[in-house]
């Protein structure tokens, strides 16, 4: 854990979900809740079978973009720890792609922060996916649903925390 309590890693290797989750709250007994999300490679997408997926990214900018998103989350919610690990390279169905972890005194901040990080990461971090399908390789198109998911945080910075702090 860095001094700021934010861990950002972009790597080809797999990661240890349990260890990463434990590290985010390690030695911080004020943490009451840790929310986590793991994104996995699906074996089907847009109706087509996916044999494998290759994630390309923009080294240098990727780390900066993820750090900026993490800083934005920390400015919106009282988070005691943030961890983002994102893989690149060729992955198979069932493989882990991304892990986002947030720790906070209260569960709503942890949940909101975690979801915000995933939504913004999907639209603001420079990754691109290429899928291998029976009809050949194809680049995954950006989804308008993801844009809307990211935008909901502009209209309502912390929608659920307000209801149940």
């Amino acid at each position: 854990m860095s001094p700021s309590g934010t861990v950002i890693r972009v790597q080809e290797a797999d990661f240890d979900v349990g260890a990463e989750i434990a590290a985010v709250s390690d030695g911080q007994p004020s943490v009451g809740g840790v929310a986590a999300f793991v994104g996995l490679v699906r074996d089907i997408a847009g109706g087509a079978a996916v044999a494998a997926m290759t994630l390309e990214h923009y080294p240098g900018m990727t780390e900066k973009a993820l750090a900026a998103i993490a800083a934005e989350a920390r400015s919106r919610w009282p988070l005691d720890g943030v961890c983002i690990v994102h893989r690149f390279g060729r992955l198979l169905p069932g493989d882990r792609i991304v892990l986002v972890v947030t720790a906070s005194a209260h569960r709503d901040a942890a949940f909101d922060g975690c979801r915000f990080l995933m939504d913004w990461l999907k639209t603001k971090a420079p990754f691109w996916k290429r899928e291998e399908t029976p009809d050949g390789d194809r680049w995954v198109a950006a989804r308008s649903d993801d844009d809307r998911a990211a935008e909901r945080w502009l209209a309502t910075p912390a929608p659920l925390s307000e209801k149940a702090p």
Partner: protein
Amino acid sequence: MKLLYFAWLKQRTGISEETVSPPDDVRTVAALVDWLRLRGPGYADAFADLRPIRVAVNQEFAAFDSAIGPDDEIALFPPVTGG
């Protein structure tokens, strides 16, 4: 000026990274793209439609009318799809 291309823009241009020296009147990303289109059919194909293209200047998201200079790093790529 350092240029980077990602995803299908890299495939269409056939280039992942290059250093170019466009004329002095190329002062925005839009002007750069206009100039790139003239460099060959791969570029013309890649930049035929700018709507699905996004840009970063010095590793920050930017707009086509963003100002650029000789020392900048400019990246061109499709909308991101990570996570």
